[in-house]
């Protein structure tokens, strides 16, 4: 590309095609692309030929066959009679769930620890320093095992559960909480919630515009909270409270009903977010230190108070340094979640492994794994790049 543009503007003519840099550049690029395609084609056709010669069935037909095995945590309906494809989908959703929640906690914890490291309070700064140095230097798999077995060994059996308010139970099978079940009219509450979110965004945009024009601030955060919480609450009472609560009940060996967080999920989220947060803390610290002190002084000189200074001057500039490495950490966390297989959390790799073993379709399943992790990572990257562009310095 670069060569093309270059030649388009200057067009150095050498008389002979053989000595034309543009033609030569094009020739080498075509050769390289051709080699890569030939290599890829060879790998695929060779593999197919070998599979056929060894009488190994191939193809993706197996995705429709009955899976026949159970999965302990499924966000969508899944039974043993569901298909392998459905099982992989369940595993995929579990991976997305643990990655999303892990990213959320890691970001919050990482920002707190990063700011704490810069605190003028000696104890807080040293505690944050210890946290970062210890956690980021211990292999993640060990931390996952630590949290899993530490959590498992320290909580009681179901019959001796730790109980809060007779409705929340904690034992070595998980954390059980009551679950709200929406009856008829429940969709209206959901709709009110969505309207609240959309309304808040519109309100925020309007408030921003008004402030830019008139200089008058508007409490958009508070009013947004009011909209998002208030509207569903009003809808809840208007529709006649169409919600019943299902409480977990001890029946036989385990609790039945309610919402359940498995120890595997809790341990994995804890380990992933605490580990990744230690890296994020350093990134945040670097970002804040990258904003020169003169910026703060200039803001003070203009009469901005400390909070607006941080919010409007320091953080926007720090974010430009923080976002690119932060993206890498999010990607790492997502990929690290595949260590879940060690502690029985049914993520994509764990479920896929079972599918692989039962069908013997190794190449296909590994292909599905790679495709899904690649898509997840590319999606995250794309979003963060978009966000990065929005935060980038706009020169006027």
């Amino acid at each position, binding site marked *: 590309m670069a060569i093309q543009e270059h030649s388009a503007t200057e067009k150095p003519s050498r008389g002979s095609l053989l000595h034309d840099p543009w033609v030569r550049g094009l020739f080498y690029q075509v050769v390289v692309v051709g080699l890569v395609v030939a290599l890829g084609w060879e790998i695929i056709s060779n593999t197919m030929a070998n599979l056929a010669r060894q009488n190994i069935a191939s193809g993706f037909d197996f995705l429709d066959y009955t899976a*026949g095995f159970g999965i302990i945590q499924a966000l969508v309906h899944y039974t043993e009679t569901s298909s392998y494809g459905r099982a992989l989908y369940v595993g995929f959703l579990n991976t997305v769930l643990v990655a999303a929640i892990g990213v959320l906690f890691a970001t919050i914890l990482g920002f707190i620890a990063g700011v704490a490291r810069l605190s003028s309070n000696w104890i807080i700064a040293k505690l944050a320093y210890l946290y970062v140095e210890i956690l980021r230097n211990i292999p993640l798999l060990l931390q996952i095992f630590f949290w899993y077995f530490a959590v498992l060994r320290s909580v009681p059996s179901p019959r001796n559960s730790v109980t809060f308010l007779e409705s929340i139970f904690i034992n*070595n099978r998980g954390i059980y909480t009551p679950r709200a079940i929406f009856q008829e009219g429940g969709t209206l509450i959901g709709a009110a919630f969505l309207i609240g979110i959309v309304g808040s965004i519109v309100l925020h945009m309007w408030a921003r515009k008004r402030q830019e024009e008139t200089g008058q601030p508007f409490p958009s955060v508070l009013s947004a909270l009011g909209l998002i919480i208030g509207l569903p609450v009003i809808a809840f009472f208007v529709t006649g409270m169409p919600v019943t609560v299902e409480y977990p009940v001890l029946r036989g060996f385990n609790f039945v009903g309610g919402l359940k967080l498995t120890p595997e999920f809790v341990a994995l989220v804890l380990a992933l977010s605490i580990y990744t947060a230690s890296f994020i803390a350093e990134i945040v610290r670097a970002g804040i230190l990258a904003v020169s002190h003169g910026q703060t002084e200039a803001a003070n000189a203009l009469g901005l108070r400390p909070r607006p200074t941080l919010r409007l001057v320091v953080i926007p500039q720090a974010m430009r340094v923080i976002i690119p490495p932060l993206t890498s950490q999010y990607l790492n966390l997502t990929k690290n979640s595949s260590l879940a297989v060690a*502690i029985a959390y049914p993520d994509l790799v764990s479920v896929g492994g079972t599918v692989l073993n039962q069908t013997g379709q190794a190449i296909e399943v590994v292909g599905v794994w790679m495709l899904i992790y690649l898509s997840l990572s590319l999606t995250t990257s794309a979003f963060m790049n978009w966000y990065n562009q929005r935060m980038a310095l706009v020169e006027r």
Partner: protein
Amino acid sequence: MTIKFLPLAMGAALGMAVTAASGATLDDVKAKGFVQCGVSQGLPGFSNPDSAGNWSGLDVDYCRALAAAIFNDGAAVKFTPLSAKERFTALGTGEIDILSRNTTWTMTRDTTLGLNFVGVDYYDGQGFMARKSLGVSSALELSGAAVCTNTGTTTELNVADYFRANNMPYDVVAFEKSDEVVQAYDAGRCDVYTTDAFGLYAQRLKLANPDEHMVLPEIISKEPFGPVVRQGDDEWFNIAKWTLFALVNAEELGVTKANVDEMKSSDNPAIKRLLGIEGSFGETIGLTNDWAYNIIKAVGNYGEVFDANVGPDTPLGISRGLNALWSKGGIMYAPPIR
């Protein structure tokens, strides 16, 4: 030029050696001078390395028998430890010559993976282990239980089938490695631990208080373990098959490691044929006629192999049960050599 070179390079890169399925495994094995045998990553009684890296176990002894049949040397064998996921790929690509890794013979594996099961060298079934304090005496009382097991094995399917068939809800907690399954069960994550029955006895020894746990009487599946070879090499398939049959026939005929030399002068025609005194059975499978003699000299007969590795006098303490000879109440049976 480059294009001609590519297929070779890719073949090598993918580990799919050209000889892999061409029907010359015996020639390959003879040329390199040893049998490459795929075993487990460490399973007491079946294939387990000691601190010096010497392998022992029932599956290991089968490979030694195979090496003895070919080279008259039970030590002419190298072992490749494989996970449950890797095993079939390793065999299919020619990385190993034979897979002897407590592998359950199922129709899917036999028909779609390009493999052949040689026979059965151990009959097992899946069972349950639970705490005695749970007060359960039968697997049918396990409704609603949390079940710990391994991923990527037939056990996951069996437990699903069993609970479904008996209309009982359950939670399956499936770990990648056996060590974590046992630890999690010991920590109380699950009410029961399920795997093949021999595994339950082996793993119970690893628990903090083995006496507090009991194996429930139900066996919920058929798990016939056997060695596996690649499809498409009948000569090698025959050698593997008759090595197993020779072990069983030797026990049936009373030929042991200790008496195999004096048995050579036996009047029993069946023993004469087994030991190569009469007929040329070894040559028909591409070996020497004293192939079975060499096997027995190296590892003993099936009964001796069983007793030495998993029998009542070993830590596993498993009785013969189904694995006794057909003439002694079991189902272990081999076609005659004639």
